[in-house]
């Protein structure tokens, strides 16, 4: 009988422990969110590809980008963009250029006959949730940077671009609205690159460059050290000029970051009329 009672007591203790654990997990879950994006696919764009042969180097930190933030000092958010950015940029460049080689970690661009090497990165990631914005929307801002190297390994262009996506929470459960906002921001980046990549970086001019024996290794650390000198030497590009980002918020307009002095005109056109100009 005593054994039976001891057994019941042990079972009760286990149940209490399990219930306590479950409650603790629920409380923890209430304090934060973990969002992981699946690889993104974009529709085939209606564009004519540029007649260029390019290589794309995806840095490890770009392929495994994780953003951690604390909203209003309470909710902890961990957003793992995973391979979604790498998938997006690889697909996009396949559509934008005639010949694209995505370099693996052990590949050397010197072995390839290419016109340019593109290396994307993320400068900043921001988001807002309804508890912050006092709206029913989730918003995501991603500031990308594209470094373009010529066939000698020199930095030819350095283009920061800012993308924005917004999604409402109606009809979407859990972290789906934030995922959707992030995907829309990536599509926004794709649209911006299709529209302005050549205008802002003059990448198509690399097609006519005579091949050089020293080809880019894609080592961004080495190239970045020579960036300023290389930029000063290369006259075809206009002087780089950065525009301050507007403060985050659902009503903030698009942030267009440009190297091109003429870009201010296109921004005005965008705001007052058709942005297809």
């Amino acid at each position, binding site marked *: 009988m005593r054994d039976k009672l001891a057994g019941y007591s042990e079972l009760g203790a286990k149940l209490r422990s399990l219930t306590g654990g479950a409650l603790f997990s629920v409380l923890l879950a209430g304090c934060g969110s973990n969002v992981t994006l699946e690889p993104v696919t974009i529709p085939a764009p209606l564009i004519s590809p540029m007649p260029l042969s390019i290589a794309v180097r995806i840095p490890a930190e770009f392929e495994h980008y994780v953003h951690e933030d604390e909203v209003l000092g309470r909710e902890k958010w961990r957003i793992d963009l995973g391979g979604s950015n790498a998938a997006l940029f690889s697909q996009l460049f396949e559509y934008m250029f005639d010949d694209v080689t995505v370099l693996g970690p052990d590949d050397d661009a010197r072995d390839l006959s290419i016109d340019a090497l593109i290396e994307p990165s993320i400068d900043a990631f921001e988001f807002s949730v309804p508890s912050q914005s006092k709206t029913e929307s989730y918003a995501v801002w991603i500031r990308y940077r594209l470094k373009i190297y010529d066939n000698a390994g020199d930095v030819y262009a350095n283009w920061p671009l800012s993308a924005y996506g917004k999604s409402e929470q109606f009809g979407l459960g859990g972290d789906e609205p934030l995922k959707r906002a992030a995907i829309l921001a990536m599509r926004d980046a794709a649209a911006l690159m299709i529209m302005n990549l050549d205008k802002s970086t003059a990448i198509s001019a690399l097609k006519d460059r005579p091949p050089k024996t020293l080809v880019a290794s894609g080592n961004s650390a080495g190239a970045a050290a020579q960036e300023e000198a290389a930029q000063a030497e290369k006259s075809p590009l206009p002087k780089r000029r950065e525009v301050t980002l507007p403060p985050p918020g659902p009503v903030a307009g*698009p942030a267009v970051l440009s190297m091109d002095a003429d870009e201010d005109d296109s921004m005005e056109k965008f705001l007052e009329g*058709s*942005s297809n100009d």
Partner: protein
Amino acid sequence: MIEATRRTGTILTAGFATLALSGCITSRVEDAREGMTGIEDDEAVVILAKSYHLGNETEDKYISCVEDALSRGSKGLRVIPHRQFVDSLFPWFEPRTAPAETRGLPKLMERPGVAERIADQKVRYIIWLDGDTDRVAGGGSLSCAVGPGGGGCFGFAWWQNDADYNAAVWDLKGLESAGSVTADVSGTSFLPALVIPIPLIARARASACKGLADQLRDFIIDEPEV
């Protein structure tokens, strides 16, 4: 016969109960015509939200509601789902790239594949929705309590939602604006409670959806009176 009469009675009772249990709605739907309209049987329309880059807040739910309402009924139009249309013309109808005015249409049509893709889907009109539903006022107080003998609520609460939407109709045949339709709906909901709360909900957004869709259908199908 008795069964049919009983069923009609039930439907009438349910209808009266629904009417009695809804809040107050005031609605104004107007159109402004700029050109002749009309649509062939095989032609379609597509409903898109104006860009959120320009501050527009039109809800996805509202777009789907107007799509459903426009395509229903004997005079229903062929409606291409907005996401399908935007994907088929990627990236030219993304929030950043979509034309904001009809003067951007000729240049858009010159882009490779755009005119063909629109022609393939036989899209005659693009309808751009702008606007949203907001809670503009509210008040009252309501408290509920539960005890060993039971529970109940006591008090009165109310709130007012305004649904203001504008639909700009672009004719892709003439690459020009055909006009616009606006729906301004104000709905006040009440929640009186004497032990049991009785919600009297005014569905402003749903009413704005139906009103706008009905007017849009007439606007597109009917020729203006001469």
